[in-house]
C-alpha cells in the first residue's frame, strides 16, 4: 500500500518502454523518492559518467505518501548525476505532477539513453507513449504545457518540462511542472535536454490506497493540527510565504549581499514579503495576489503575483501582465540581494522568466552577482559582455541577463556556465560562492555557522534544504542554538541531514519540519506503508541514504578537499550586524562532523559504518 509497486523504464535510444515491479526490498530500506531513486541510480550508472552523456540516467520518483491526504503529500524528485556539479543530484518539486504519476499507476520513471530527435512522454494511465516533440522544441515551459494539453485535448494533464534553458543545456537549468513549481537545482534540466526529452505529460484516473485507513486519517489529522497551530507553518508561511525570512535573515546579519561582500542588504525591505503586500501600480493592487498550496498542502506558502504593468520590464509586453508564481525567499535573495538590486517588479519579472524558460533562480542570481563583481573589478567590460553593463544594483542588467541566459545568447552563454566556471575563466575562481560547483543560497555562513557545515557537506553541492539549521539557529526550532558559534553544530547538522533525507524520501515537504519532528511523521508513514516505520527506522533510513549519496560522490571523484567553503567566507570577516568580525568556523566543525558520521579523516565512510547501515 501507499506505493503503486510499479515503475516505468523508458529507453530513449531504442524507444523501448517497459513496466517493472518496484523493488520492495529496497523500498523498505530507502522508503521512496530521494532514497529509493538514489538506490536505483547508484546501482545502474557508473559514478564517473559524464552527466550530459546518454549513459547518465534521469529518474522521476514519488514517495509513498505522494498522492495521499497527508499534509504536503504531493512531492516528487528528479534524481540523476548533476550537470552543474558532477555530484548526485536530487531536486524536489511540488505542484500536482507527482501525485498524477501515482494516479496513473506508477511510483517512478527511469529514463535511459538519448532520443535521436526531440520527444516527450505521455503517461495516460497504463497507456505510455513516446511522442514526437519536433514542434515543441524551442518553446518555453508555459507554451509547452499549453501545446500538449491542447494537442491531447486534456486540460487536466500535469506536465513536467524543460524550457529553452534546458534545451540549451544551461548548466543550472531546471525541470518545471505546473507552470511554476520546479525541480530546481544542480542542472537536472540540462540532463533532460541532453537526452532530447522535452516533457513528461501525465494523466491518471486511478487511486492511491494506504495500509490502515483509519489510523492514517487519525495520524494525518493530528499532523495537520500541529501544522495549523504552529507559528511558522500556521501563520508565518501562510501569511508571508517563505519571504517571511527576508527581513529576519537580514537583521541576523546573514543575508549574503553583492556576491557575499556584505552580509546585510540595505534594500532588503524593498524586496521582502512585507513589500509584496503593499499596494503598487496604477490599479493599487499589491504584487502579491494570492496564496497557493501545492497538492495536499495545508500550509500554502506558495505565492501568486503580478508585475506592475507600467514597470519597464513589461510595459511593452502585455503577455506578462497576468498572474503567475511569485517570489519565494531564495529566488528573491538571489535575484535581489546577491546582485544588490532592490526593484521588486524587476525581481518578479526575472523570476517569471526563470519559470518560463526553466532556470534555477538561485544559481542564476548568484552567478550574476559573481559576474557583477568581475565587472566591478574591471575584469569584465562591455566589450566582453556585448554591451551588458553588469553593475551591482542594476535592474536593467538583471532583465537583459536573464533573457540572454535562458537563450544561451551572447554573454548569457557564459552566465549559463555557473559562477564556478565563469570566475575560473576570468582568473578569479576565489570569487565563486559555490560548493562542489553549486551556488549557495540565501544564508551567510558567517552569520549562521551551521549553514557553513551544511553547504560544505551537502551531497548535491551547496544547498539549504539538506540540513536547514536556520530552523534552530534563527527560529529556535526545535530548540534555539546560537547562530554565531560552532559548538554543537556538527551534531545538529548530522541530525537535520538524516531526518531531512527521510522526509524527502516519504513524499512530504521539508517545510513541515518547522512544526513536525519525526515523532509526528513516522506514525503517518507507518499507517500508510507496510513495514515498521518508527522514528528510529526513519532516522536509520535517512542516515543510510546520506551515506549512499556520499559513497556515490566519493566514487565519482569527490574527496574531503571538496567539502570546503569559498575563501571569502573563511577569510573576510562579516562587516556589519551581529556576526561582525566573524568568519566561518568550518575548520573546527568538519573533523567533528566526520567523526560523528563514522567517516575517516578523509571523509570516507568506514567499513563499520557501511556495515551498520547495511550498505
Amino acid at each position: 500500500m501507499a506505493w503503486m509497486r510499479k515503475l516505468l523504464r523508458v529507453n530513449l535510444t531504442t524507444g523501448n518502454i517497459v513496466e517493472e515491479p518496484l523493488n520492495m526490498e529496497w523500498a523498505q530500506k530507502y522508503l521512496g523518492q530521494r532514497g529509493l531513486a538514489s538506490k536505483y541510480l547508484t546501482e545502474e550508472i557508473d559514478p564517473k559518467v559524464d552527466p550530459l552523456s546518454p549513459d547518465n540516467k534521469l529518474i522521476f520518483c514519488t514517495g509513498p505518501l505522494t498522492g495521499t491526504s497527508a499534509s504536503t503529500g504531493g512531492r516528487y524528485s528528479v534524481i540523476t548525476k548533476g550537470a552543474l556539479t558532477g555530484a548526485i543530484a536530487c531536486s524536489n518539486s511540488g505542484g500536482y505532477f507527482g501525485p498524477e504519476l501515482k494516479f496513473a499507476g506508477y511510483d517512478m520513471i527511469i529514463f535511459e539513453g538519448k532520443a535521436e530527435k526531440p520527444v516527450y512522454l505521455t503517461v495516460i494511465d497504463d497507456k505510455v507513449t513516446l511522442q514526437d516533440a519536433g514542434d515543441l522544441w524551442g518553446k518555453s515551459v508555459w507554451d509547452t504545457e499549453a501545446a500538449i494539453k491542447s494537442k491531447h485535448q486534456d486540460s487536466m494533464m500535469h506536465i513536467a518540462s524543460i524550457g529553452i534553458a534546458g534545451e540549451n543545456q544551461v548548466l543550472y537549468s531546471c525541470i518545471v511542472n505546473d507552470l511554476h513549481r520546479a525541480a530546481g537545482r544542480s542542472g537536472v534540466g540540462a540532463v533532460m535536454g541532453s537526452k532530447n526529452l522535452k516533457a513528461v505529460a501525465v494523466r491518471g484516473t486511478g487511486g492511491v490506497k494506504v495500509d490502515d485507513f483509519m489510523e492514517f486519517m487519525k495520524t494525518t489529522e493530528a499532523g495537520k493540527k500541529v501544522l495549523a497551530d504552529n507559528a511558522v507553518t500556521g501563520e508565518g508561511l501562510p501569511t508571508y510565504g517563505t519571504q517571511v525570512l527576508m527581513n529576519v535573515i537580514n537583521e541576523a546579519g546573514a543575508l549574503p549581499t553583492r556576491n557575499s561582500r556584505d552580509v546585510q542588504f540595505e534594500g532588503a525591505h524593498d524586496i521582502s514579503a512585507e513589500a509584496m503586500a503593499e499596494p503598487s501600480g496604477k490599479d493599487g493592487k499589491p504584487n502579491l495576489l494570492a496564496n497557493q498550496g501545492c497538492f495536499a498542502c495545508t500550509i500554502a506558502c506558495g505565492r501568486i503575483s503580478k508585475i506592475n504593468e507600467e514597470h519597464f520590464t513589461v510595459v511593452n509586453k502585455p503577455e506578462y501582465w497576468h498572474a503567475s508564481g511569485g517570489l519565494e525567499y531564495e529566488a528573491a535573495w538571489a535575484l535581489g540581494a546577491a546582485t544588490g538590486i532592490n526593484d521588486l517588479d524587476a525581481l518578479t519579472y526575472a523570476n517569471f522568466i526563470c519559470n518560463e524558460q526553466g532556470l534555477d533562480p538561485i544559481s542564476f542570481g548568484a552567478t550574476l552577482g559573481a559576474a557583477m563583481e568581475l565587472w566591478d573589478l574591471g575584469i569584465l567590460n562591455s566589450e566582453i559582455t556585448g554591451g551588458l553593463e553588469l553593475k551591482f544594483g542594476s535592474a536593467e542588467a538583471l532583465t537583459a541577463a536573464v533573457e540572454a541566459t535562458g537563450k544561451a545568447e551572447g554573454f548569457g552563454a557564459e552566465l549559463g556556465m555557473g559562477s564556478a566556471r565563469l570566475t575560473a575563466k576570468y582568473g578569479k575562481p576565489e570569487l565563486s560562492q559555490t560548493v562542489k560547483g553549486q551556488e549557495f543560497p540565501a544564508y551567510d555562513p558567517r552569520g549562521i555557522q551551521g549553514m557553513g557545515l551544511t553547504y560544505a557537506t551537502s551531497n548535491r553541492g551547496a544547498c539549504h534544504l539538506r540540513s536547514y539549521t536556520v530552523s534552530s539557529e534563527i527560529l529556535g526550532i526545535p530548540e534555539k542554538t546560537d547562530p554565531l558559534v560552532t559548538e554543537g553544530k556538527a551534531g545538529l547538522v548530522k541530525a537535520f541531514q538524516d531526518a531531512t533525507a527521510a522526509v524527502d524520501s516519504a513524499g512530504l515537504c521539508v517545510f513541515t519540519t518547522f512544526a513536525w519532528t519525526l515523532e509526528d511523521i513516522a506514525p503517518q508513514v507507518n499507517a500508510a506503508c507496510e513495514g515498521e516505520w518508527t522514528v528510529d527506522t526513519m532516522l536509520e533510513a535517512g542516515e543510510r541514504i546520506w551515506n549512499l549519496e556520499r559513497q556515490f560522490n566519493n566514487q565519482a571523484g569527490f574527496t574531503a578537499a571538496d567539502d570546503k567553503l569559498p575563501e571569502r567566507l573563511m577569510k573576510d570577516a562579516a562587516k556589519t550586524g551581529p556576526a561582525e568580525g566573524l568568519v566561518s568556523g568550518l575548520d573546527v566543525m568538519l573533523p567533528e562532523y566526520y567523526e560523528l558520521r563514522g567517516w575517516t579523516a578523509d571523509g570516507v565512510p568506514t567499513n563499520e559504518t557501511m556495515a551498520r547501515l547495511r550498505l
Partner: protein
Amino acid sequence: MQRALVIDPGKCTGCKQCELACSYVKEGAFNPSKSRIRVFDFHQNARFVPYTCTQCDEAWCQQACPTNAITTDAFGVKNVNDNLCVGCKVCTIACPFGTVNYNVATGKVIKCDLCGGDPACASACPTDAIAYTDVEQAGFDKMQAWAQKTDAGALQA
C-alpha cells in the same frame, strides 16, 4: 433545516484536500479524478475555484433520468440509486453545471450527495473555503461583510 455547501473561492489555495477526502469516502482510495467536488485553477487570474453540485430544487438531472434513479431525500439532496442507474448519461447532459459525471469503472453516474449530512470536503478544507451551512443563512456572512463595507456612518466617522 436544510444545509448546503457554501464555497468561497477567495479562501481556496488549490490544495485539493477536498478532492482527496471526497474520493476516499466515495471510492476507497485517494483519487481526485473520481472526486465529486473539483478545484479549478484559473492561474492567470490567481483564483482557485472549488465546484460541485448545488442540489437544485428542481433538478434537471432528476427530471431527465428515464429510470427515476435520482431521488430527493428529506434534506433536498439528490441521490443516485445505483440499482436503477443504467449509465445512459442523459443526466450529465441535462445538468447545466456539469456536476453529474459518468464513472467508467462502474458504469454509473456519480454526484455529490453531501455525504449523508456530513460532507467530507468541508471537514477537510484547511482554509474554510468550503463551509456546510443552513441554506437560508448561506449569504449572511457575505451580507455582514458588505454591511460593514457600505456603512455610510462608519465611512464618515
